[in-house]
């Protein structure tokens, strides 16, 4: 499990660094086309928004693996003996939400959107593929929550 998690981490890091760099280039290209070429590029704004969805959801998944999300441990500090139980319950809730809402709900959204054949205004991309970030992040978050569960508490 640990080896697999390391591999997922490294892969996500590569993807995130690339998406983030693309996002910066994209916004800067928009500035350049507006000022220097005097012809605003219509596709950069849309591409940047779609990149944001991917960076946001994949970044949130990676952050879950890195335990970076904001959470409060008031109860665990108040009753230290509850800590193991709280940890298992909160990870189980996280995994359930990620799997059922982002995973199943997201997958259904992708299928529905593909079925309706919705495309984006400027780029003509199929919105179903843009929404693919939802089920993907759902699966990644479930994976991180479960791998955390399988490890002994610190």
């Amino acid at each position: 499990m640990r080896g697999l998690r390391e591999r997922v981490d490294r892969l996500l890091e590569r993807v995130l660094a690339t998406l983030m760099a693309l996002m910066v280039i994209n916004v800067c290209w928009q500035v350049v086309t507006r000022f220097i070429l005097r012809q605003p590029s219509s596709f950069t704004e849309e591409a940047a928004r779609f990149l944001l969805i991917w960076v946001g959801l994949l970044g949130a998944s990676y952050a879950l693996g890195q335990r970076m999300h904001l959470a409060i441990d008031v109860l665990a500090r108040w009753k230290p003996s509850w800590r193991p139980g709280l940890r298992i319950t909160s990870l189980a809730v996280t995994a359930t939400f990620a799997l059922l809402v982002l995973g199943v709900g997201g997958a259904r959204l992708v299928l529905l959107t593909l079925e309706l054949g919705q495309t984006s205004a400027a780029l003509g991309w199929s919105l179903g593929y843009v929404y693919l970030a939802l089920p993907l992040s759902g699966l990644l978050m479930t994976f991180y929550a479960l791998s955390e569960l399988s490890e002994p508490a610190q």
Partner: protein
Amino acid sequence: MVDLASVGVLGGVFLVVMALGAPIAIAVGTAATATLLLGGSPLPVVTTISQRVATALDSFSLLAIPLFILSGQLMNRGGAARRLLEFGKALVGALPGGLVLVNIVGCLLFGAISGSAVATAAAIGGFMIPLMEEEGYGRDYGTAVNITASTTGLLIPPSNILIVYSLASGGVSIAALFLAGYLPGLLVGACVASAAVVLARIRGLEVARIPWNTGATLRSGIAALPSLLLVVVVMGGIIGGVFTATEAAGVAVVYALLLSLLVYREISVRELPAILVEASATTGVVLILVGASMALSWVMAFENIPQGVAELMLSLAAGPIAVLLVMNVVLLAVGTFMDMTPAVLIFTPIFLPVAIEMGVDPVHFGVIMVLNLCVGLCTPPVGTVLFVGCGVGETTLSRVLPSLLPLYAAMLVALVLVMSLPELSLWLPRTFGFLP
């Protein structure tokens, strides 16, 4: 009509999941899903929530947030914090208040390039708290000053939370909000500084001053100038209508990159992938909160909760001051246990229509709300800046709290002033033509 069962499920699920210690975004998302499940079948409900999360993130204004996070991290690693502090030290170290003022001015300057209170608390606190301890102020006092002063970065532009408010309010101008934040941000700094100096006097702490040195001031000023120029480029561009906040954030990234790679030379190209990953993870933390909170806000609108609250508040037939006061008390209470981003996204749609009805300008209301929730960032049980500040200061909450209490009072004084003097927020945006 508001269904009380759904309000109960919404609040109950949120509090229980959060108390378990799950990520706050998960608690918000679970509450939204559970509430909708009361009246709908599971498959459409999870699809709707998922769709709300995705459409919330599909926004060009929000794009400014990851870019400002990235430029802030580049500036931080690139050595801007240290240079800004050196300049602050030379500039105000000789005034009564000495290092206390240096800490606060450092937070104001760093807040102007980073837009995040947590980053400011970590960057400035890391330098200033040990220095203040060395000068005999004590670690706990230094930490308390650093924590409260860091929140000024949320009002002084560029500010990610004001972008979030613009989104929640349905499109209040980001440029107007950014300009509106300056004076209230400075006011909070001034109030915290006064209280801190008085507190130091009462405790008999020796307020050490650094002798004025024109040469050192000029040298440190020149070293800090490229960092400060970033503010001029970003804010000048936004105010002058040259670019949008998002485009300005993109320009800020390029500027910060060139500055730290070529001018300050404190980071190398090899470190860039790691910085990009860190920025994207921080972005993920913020954006999943935005997505989940927007989903919850949508569910609340679906359940007619904002209308219910509005009717209730307007039926009290109280004056604008009383209504604003009630809202502020609610927000102060909410701020103690809820993080700022979900609080802004969830409570803006509920309170803003009532505030507008009462004749409060949406820009003014945004500043009040952010300043109010800044207090919550410094208070237990949930205070992000408080925890980061205590971590950087290597001290504990119970030791910092005695020094924090008078500083909370100073922040509340600033809040009352900002609330009762609308011109404090509205004068600058009006002068530059962003408000009628």
